[in-house]
């Protein structure tokens, strides 16, 4: 598998870059060894698709943060007189929804909720999954292995379904949705961290460190963790893309963010009712934005994966 080969190379390169100055004292002065991260950043910056995706994402985030500066309207209070006016209406270039609220405004403010609900659970679960994966995969303790088997049962539920079920029993609302998504993500992220740890643990550099009698905890967090984090990071970026769709989906079903709070999923659901009357813009615009943001995350994830692959780095 590609990720495994990548991990092998990453591990070797780390050792080489660290030890080369000590091995050859003279050479360090002539050529400064480039760090793995700097090489990765440079490789990423050459990937046009990934860079464009990153720019799109940054723009969306900035637009959400500075929403009040970009629109004079309120996201929750509309003007019923112009309700359902289409794209290109004077003063409302993306049109108005069924309650006469400006769609551009709701997209801007909605981004705050849609992005938060999708990204925060991934960020919170990241360290949890890392620790679970490291302890279960490296120490191979019975408790860790048992925990992994218990988490395996959660794979019997389709991801979206588990999120829906948890959100349904916890009740709608921003905090509950994030909790539901977070719980759903634990087995997936822990599995990736676990697999990465198991493969890394059998590498030469870990064997060598063990043979030196390195402190297992130090070895785990200083040598092993960086390589596991890299793999988890690629996965987490892709997961953010998926969670944008899932979180909006929960709102679409009414178990996510509570209306009238703007959210891209709720906006799509609002559009569903007027779609049958032949009015398309209310549903299509927010859905298109969900697609663009999700795709951007996926392309960035691909870019990060390639950038961290030493075989694809040059220079």
């Amino acid at each position, binding site marked *: 598998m590609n990720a495994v080969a990548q991990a092998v190379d990453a591990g070797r390169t780390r050792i080489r870059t660290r030890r080369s100055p000590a091995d050859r004292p003279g050479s360090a002065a002539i050529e400064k060894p480039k760090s793995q991260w700097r090489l990765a950043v440079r490789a990423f910056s050459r990937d046009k698709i990934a860079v464009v995706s990153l720019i799109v994402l940054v723009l969306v985030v900035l637009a959400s943060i500075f929403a009040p500066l970009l629109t004079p309207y309120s996201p929750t209070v509309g003007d019923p007189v112009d309700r359902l006016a289409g794209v290109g209406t004077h003063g409302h270039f993306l049109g108005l929804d069924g309650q006469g609220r400006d769609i551009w405004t709701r997209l801007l403010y909605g981004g705050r909720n849609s992005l938060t609900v999708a990204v925060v659970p991934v960020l919170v679960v990241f360290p949890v999954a890392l620790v679970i994966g490291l302890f279960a995969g490296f120490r191979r303790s019975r408790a860790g292995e048992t925990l992994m088997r218990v988490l395996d049962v959660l794979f*019997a*539920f389709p991801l979206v379904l588990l999120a*829906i079920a948890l959100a349904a029993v916890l009740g709608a609302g921003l905090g509950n949705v994030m909790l539901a998504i977070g719980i759903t993500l634990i087995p997936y992220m822990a599995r990736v961290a676990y697999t990465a740890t198991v493969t890394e643990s059998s590498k030469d550099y870990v064997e060598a460190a063990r043979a030196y009698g390195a402190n297992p905890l130090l070895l785990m967090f200083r040598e092993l963790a960086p390589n596991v984090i890299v793999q988890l990071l690629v996965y987490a970026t892709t997961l953010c893309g998926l969670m944008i769709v899932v979180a909006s989906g929960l709102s679409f079903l009414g*178990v996510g963010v509570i209306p009238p709070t703007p959210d891209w999923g709720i906006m799509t659901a609002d559009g569903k009712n007027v779609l049958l009357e032949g009015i398309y813009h209310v549903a*299509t615009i927010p859905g298109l934005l969900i*697609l663009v943001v999700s*795709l951007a995350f996926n392309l960035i994830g691909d870019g990060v994966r390639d950038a961290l692959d030493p075989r694809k780095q040059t220079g």
Partner: protein
Amino acid sequence: MTRVIGSRLLSTVLVLFGVSLIVFLLLQMVPGDPAVTILGSGATADAVAALRSQLGLDRSLPVQFFSYLGGLLHGDLGRSLTISAPVTDIMLPRFANTLILTGAALLLCIVIAVPLGVIAANGQYGIFDRASMMISLAGASVPVYWFGLLLIGIFSITLGWLPTSGMYNPRFPGGAGDLLAHLVLPAIAAALVPLAVIARMTRSVMIDILAQDYIRTLRASGLSTTSVLWRHALRNALPPIVNIIGLQVGYLLGGVVFVEVVFGWPGLGQQLYTSITQRDIPVVQAGVLFIALAFVIINLIADVAVGLLDPRTRRRAGS
């Protein structure tokens, strides 16, 4: 082979036990006392206590779980809080409808995605490859519910070709033709994301296989590209592809919930949606249980199929 299937069956039973435990625990996560929820906040303490003992809520959790499990094995999933009927009676016909939709979508996925991936792999970095992979990458990011609405907008409202919702024409319910007309759009909507993922995976599996020495030997010995591609390479690519399809069924079954809501398809997903809004938790539990059950069984089938397709596991199992 029988031993492999046997151990796989055993682990499936364990997983199903875990699944029923989690579904049982879902009910425990609901904030508040179920008895109070049923009776309303104005109920007297005596009435609440009576209902609690009637529902068995006054017993310890393990006892409650095993009585739930016992009921499960007899097909008893409790009674709906909103519809006066046993949950099983409500859900079984809907489960059948969900399976029709899922089956149709899965068929679409396999019939389109696998050839797409094979053709793309054959012309790696060609125009067809780049175009189809770009489209499938975008396809994998599409929100299912939005895509469903788009299909309704285009094919039902604007063009008027296909019905907007339901499973049969309410006024003149016809036979298979009527069902098929209602099935087309939801099946396409449900299939899109798994189709895109399967096509991409098929492509990468095929690229790995096409780079192997035996393929070069086959080509050198004068076999036509068609034969190399579809008979020899694809046969070896099938085990991983079947595995991926089995896993994608999970996404399919999750997506079907949205598709059923958007298209008014009378399946588990739509009932799940209705019951969630009414907070009818026994029905929600049953819906989740049925879908997980379908997912586990389909993966079991996929695993067994992989075992049969791959001569290496076949031989190992035989010896």
